[in-house]
């Protein structure tokens, strides 16, 4: 994609989400916010999973930790937005330290290690009741505002996180870091041989994959007003985000966010219309997408172009 087309499409996409309050009700806004949130999660995942090619399943761990750190800060009277900042920084530090350890693993083993992190976080948060309330979960001070205001506020918060993650993606893509990450993806040994500090680069990617998840998690906690370990550290969420990114096109700039939008909207449609079979139908859609669009939704463009004879 040419940069201008790309940036144009991204702006249009964000604008579509941002203008929902003008014509739609809160539920649509909420869905738009969900699209933005999952878009941000998938875009984050893309740093490690797409650019670097490391199959990371840590998303839910970062999201959940962000939610907990944010919630705890707020409960200690720290203003909401500051709490989100603290959560972001704390989780970034955590991810960098953790990355230093588990990024020594490659391929499958990394996948397992990163999924174990989610389970471990859940178990630790759940057994550290004195701090986290354990299985009881945590209440976050409710915001006193009308539902409409609140909804709009959180829509823009999530959109902001999404936009930030996209901007960082674009910057990384055009920088040394992005180039190096792609080299690592292709051949890690060769990457080291041309002078890439693979460890540092991977840690950077892993940390980037954590920051936006953490902010989103913290904002989410403030939004719902209640979090508990089971809902905050869900393996399903981790897998879903990965699936979204792959459906959209892993390693591309806008693909993961597009995949997230498609996934969330499809889920919405099926949930509303097929109570008993929504899960199966979504499963069928995923299977078909993998069969017919293994390169993700973005590869549809290339295909169409080829089919129509090269005119772009």
């Amino acid at each position, binding site marked *: 994609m040419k940069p201008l087309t790309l940036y144009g499409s991204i702006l249009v996409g964000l604008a579509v989400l941002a203008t929902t309050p003008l014509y739609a*009700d809160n*539920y649509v806004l909420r869905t738009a916010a969900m699209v933005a949130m999952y878009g941000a999660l998938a875009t984050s995942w893309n740093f490690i999973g797409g650019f670097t090619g490391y199959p990371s399943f840590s998303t839910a761990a970062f999201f959940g930790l962000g939610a907990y750190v944010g919630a705890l800060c707020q409960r200690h009277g720290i203003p909401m937005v500051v709490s989100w900042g603290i959560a972001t920084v704390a989780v970034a530090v955590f991810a960098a330290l953790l990355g230093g350890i588990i990024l020594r693993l490659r391929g499958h083993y990394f996948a397992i290690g990163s999924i174990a992190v989610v389970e471990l976080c859940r178990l630790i948060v759940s*057994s550290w009741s004195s701090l986290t309330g*354990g*299985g009881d979960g945590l209440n976050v001070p*409710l915001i006193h505002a009308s*539902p409409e205001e*609140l909804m709009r506020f959180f829509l823009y918060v999530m959109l902001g996180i999404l936009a930030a993650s996209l901007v960082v993606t674009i910057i990384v893509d055009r920088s040394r870091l992005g180039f190096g990450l792609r080299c690592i993806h292709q051949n890690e040994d060769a990457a080291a041989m041309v002078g890439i500090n693979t460890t540092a680069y991977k840690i950077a990617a892993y940390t980037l994959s954590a920051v936006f998840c953490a902010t989103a998690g913290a904002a989410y906690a403030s939004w719902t007003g209640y979090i508990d370990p*089971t*809902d905050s550290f869900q393996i399903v969420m981790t897998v879903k985000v990965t699936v979204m990114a792959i459906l959209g096109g892993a390693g591309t700039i806008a693909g993961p966010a597009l995949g997230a939008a498609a996934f969330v909207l499809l889920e919405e449609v099926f949930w509303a219309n097929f109570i008993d079979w929504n899960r199966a139908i979504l499963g069928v859609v995923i299977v078909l997408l993998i069969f017919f669009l293994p390169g993700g939704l973005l590869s549809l463009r290339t295909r169409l172009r080829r089919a129509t004879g090269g005119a772009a």
Partner: protein
Amino acid sequence: QDAETIKIGAPLALTGGLADEGKKQDIVWKMWVEKVNDAGGLQVGDKKMKVELIEYDYQSEGQRAGQLAEKLINDDKVQFLFAPFGSGHTKIVAGVGERYQIPTIACVASSESVFDQSFKHLFGTLSPNGGMTTAMVKFFKEKFPETKTMAVLGRDDVFPKSMAEGIAKAAEAEGLTVAYKELYPVGTMDHAAALSSIKATNPDWIYVTGYTQDLILARKQMQDLGVTAPIVTMVTGPSYKEFTEGLGKLADGVTSSSWWHHATSYEGQGVWPTTAAFYEAFKAKTGGDPDYVHGSCAAAGEVIADAVKRTGSLDKAKVRDAIAATDIQTFYGPIKFGPNGMNLVRELPIIQVQDEDIKVLAPANIKNADMIAMPK
């Protein structure tokens, strides 16, 4: 606003981990709506209005429960919400209801922590858990005076955890020794380690909390490992027919508390004037016995019916106040909300499985069997 129907929204767990509980809510609410509409609808002022129930499956995922509550309010314009099963998800849905000032009736949430956030639109038909612990300890001590030590194993989840902690506190207050008290995390597949430790303390009373599948596994492993005690309580196992069905003979002797039992004989207003009438209707519809989830959920409908009738309109604020002032008798028992929105404390049944059947041991006015010791 659509003046023709009263819309009640319900995010339900029809698939996923809580599917069974969700389905129970679903079936009872449908029964209630059918019955109401057959009679022409609910009395609102001088006209009758039909009731429409709108349900969505939230797949046992908390995030989605909140989202669907929002959809119900915004897209479907419901005037009331029924909260889903469990304290955690109830909290999430109640948070949404509160924000939109939509009265939310929780029928399967009993932890006080759900109601202590000063929500003004959340009302629960279950009584506080607290009513289940002290009374039970007293009752057992009276029946089995030699009871000295107990062991508690609880699931680390809102309700089961609070019950485990509540009972331990109550027992110690009554002079029992709690020789073992541990929580097990969600997703535990094996209780052998805990049970072996419990066996080593040789307690007089074993108290386990958890969801049906946890309890079935725990009971079976107790049998396998030869862990037993004169009193074995599993909360809220025997309240569910799945528990007794899954365990067969092994269920015999297990005690539990419950919020409601169909052996009670309350009477009052609503589509089912007596407990017996509800029991018959349920039996006819499903072939099985109702448990407290069924009872409590059906009663939630009556709360709404009563409130709109007294208000005579669907005015949000008025209806909310009317619900807060609820004071009715139903087949489920008395309903009267305390300041935090929970149904008032009342004497709750203590039940026991005897010959694969559920018997009520207490309170005395509805008891239909005497307590037996756990068969060896």
